[in-house]
């Protein structure tokens, strides 16, 4: 009960701002409820036993000589096994819905600065192929470079280089990331997404923002003294605003003259 109350009334998670965040929160709620039940149950049992079976004044002798109980033991082996199996399969399903199991090479990344050997790892939050087709909106590709201690965003289509990530609401975005020096990590809590940015090995992260606003991009991997200060912003805008920003900053603008 307390758990359900906490879920509804405490802000346990930040704002939902990407298409996979609600899926994440669904998993979170399930884990939270299971966790609370287990924790409260075990704590209750311990406290109850301590009170009920404590040695009262004047009592002598030992407790009951109970050493095992097969049915009971089978029960508490089987139940956790079923629970973790369920949790495992369920989170696999969640992961699939987030697009985590997509094979990366079938996706639309081959145009980019990939290693000649195609060694691209990562790819959480990949919108699945179906989604992309259904949604007919083209994928926005951005190259991300991380270095001590900043993120640089490069929009190849408009030849834009920016310190802030601008993305339109509702359109899938694909980031191909590589680090110039040490390992960094790209994390947007409101998107519930994180991916390490690794030197010598591009990684990919895909997402579809769903809520306009400014959210922090946080480096989540220790990368040196200023690791804590390595932050940037992702600006989710309405598509029109985004187009305006894009026009204003892109090199093509000059060519149109």
């Amino acid at each position: 009960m307390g758990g359900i109350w906490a879920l509804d009334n405490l802000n346990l998670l930040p704002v939902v701002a990407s298409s996979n965040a609600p899926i994440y929160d669904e998993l979170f709620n399930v884990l939270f409820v299971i966790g609370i039940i287990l924790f409260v149950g075990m704590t209750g049992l311990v406290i109850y036993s301590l009170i009920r079976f404590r040695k009262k004044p004047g009592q002598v002798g030992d407790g009951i000589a109970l050493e095992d109980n097969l049915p009971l033991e089978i029960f508490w082996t089987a139940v956790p096994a079923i629970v973790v199996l369920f949790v495992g399969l369920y989170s696999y399903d969640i992961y699939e819905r987030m697009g985590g199991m997509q094979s990366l090479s079938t996706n639309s990344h081959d145009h980019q600065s990939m290693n000649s050997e195609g060694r691209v790892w990562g790819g959480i939050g990949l919108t699945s192929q179906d989604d992309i087709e259904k949604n007919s909106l083209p994928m926005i590709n951005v190259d991300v470079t991380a270095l001590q201690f900043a993120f640089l965003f490069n929009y190849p289509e408009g030849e834009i280089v920016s310190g802030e990530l601008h993305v339109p609401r509702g359109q899938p975005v694909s980031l191909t990331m590589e680090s110039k020096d040490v390992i960094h990590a790209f994390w947007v809590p409101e998107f519930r997404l994180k991916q390490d940015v690794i030197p010598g090995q591009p990684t990919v992260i895909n997402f579809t923002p769903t809520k306009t606003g400014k959210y922090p991009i946080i480096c989540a991997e220790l990368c040196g003294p200023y690791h804590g200060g390595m932050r940037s912003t992702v600006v989710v805008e309405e598509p029109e605003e985004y187009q305006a920003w894009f026009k204003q900053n892109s090199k093509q603008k000059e060519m149109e003259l």
Partner: protein
Amino acid sequence: MSISLPPATENNSNSLQPTGWLRFISFSLDHKVIGLQYLVCGFIFYLIGGVLAGAIRIELLSPISDFLARDVYNQVLTLHGTIMIFLWIVPVVNGAFGNYLIPFYVGARDMAFPRLNAVAFWMIPPAGLMLITSYFINGAAQSGWTAYPPLSITTPAAGQIVWIVSVLLLGGSSIFGGINFIATILKLRRPGLKLMQLPMYCWAMLGTSILVVLSTPVLAGTLILLSFDIVAHTGFFNPALGGNVIVYQHLFWFYSHPAVYIMVLPAFGLVSEILPVHCRKPLFGYITMVYSIMAIVVLGLVVWAHHMFTSGTPPWMRLFFTIATSFIAVPTGIKFFNWVATLWGGRITLNSAILFSCGFIVNFVLGGITGVALAQVPFDIHVHDTYFVVAHFHYIVYGGSVFVIFSSIYHWYPKFTGKMLDEKLGIIHFVLTFIGFNLCFAPQHWLGLNGMPRRVAEYDPQFTLINQISSVGALLMAISTLPFLWNILYSFIKGEKAGNNPWQALTPEWLTTSPPPVENWSGEAPLVTKPYGYGEKNSDEGSSPITQA
């Protein structure tokens, strides 16, 4: 010093071993002396690691980097993690209690290799001193206790190299210890004593030592390669020279995940010894306990990549490691349910030892549940490298292992010294620690979920209040150390005499004098076939675990 001197036999007179308190600062071969050396040495490092934790918490009182410079903060947290793991938990739950108890439990007069044992201990103080002095000389390592390259290659080399050498020494010490425990348990058992009659702590140490022997050498090899990268500019883990940073992570976690069970399995064993004594009941489910330890050992070796879910591992790998990790909850759960069943129907004396053990159960269950959550790839992607993880592992290492260490000290202090500890102070210690601990680490779950990464000296001001609450908890924990220290020192001098077996316990270490003589028993080693033979039916005949040979 109230430790009784060895009976002066002719053989002892030509031994070069010092006697009296001098034994404790010498190259003693006595397993009991070595055990206490580990314990005291470990506790000193705990206080140092705790002061560093205090510095972390003071820095985090405000969202800007003010108390510590940014690079100093990184050094402090690296030292804190390294000291707490390699110089406090691992040496104490393995080295200290293992050395003290295992020979008693197997009915031997010492460990299988007493000299190797002393060598293993004496590798620790120099390694620890080196690590700490590096902070004052050239600056300590500053790439976290995980020392991920390329960061560890590019930060100042001196500190990192000292860190590597000292971890290599500590690893070596731990391997020597592991070999010794395996040999002692399997080879030195008193004739007539069967494996399935051993106290549970032996099984825990056997499992732990197997993990030590199989995984620590991999860490050693990895750190040697890393030091080549730093000193000789090879490129094993340096992408600029064609290397691969992910390989380091795999090798590192191949050791460091089992390392978490190296920190906790012995603690499981200790709890299994303490609970039956104070509940006056047999340990519930002995056989399933043994199997679950072995299951944890096997599973523990194949789950390491759950620390790397965001490092760009292929999807199939993530899936495999999620499932394997989750399944560790099953054998671990068996142990917890067995402990609760051990409490059930007992005649529980609510003393400090039992309180700390029960505190351990409660805290560890919470830490374990967050662990299972972290094992789910999609969940971990959001909270990896955040304070959620910090909360998870402090619930386990502090709420679990450290609570068990305290519980064990309350339980075995009469054995070590022949004196009782003060119960009132013990309960104050427990209450303060329990409240302080939960106040410190429970809020950190929320911090992690809401966007505070770990290893940062500066953070988003919205988190200030929660961080301050957490720091208050840390202060309470620091304060809670005072009654404990006072209790230990005061009782040593003025404590009530304990007698040989104040708890009426049945395990073999209690069937001799307290403190025990040099070779453990003045007569023949007793054959204890039912170390947990408590319970009503036995108590009529006066519970006796001993089968006379």
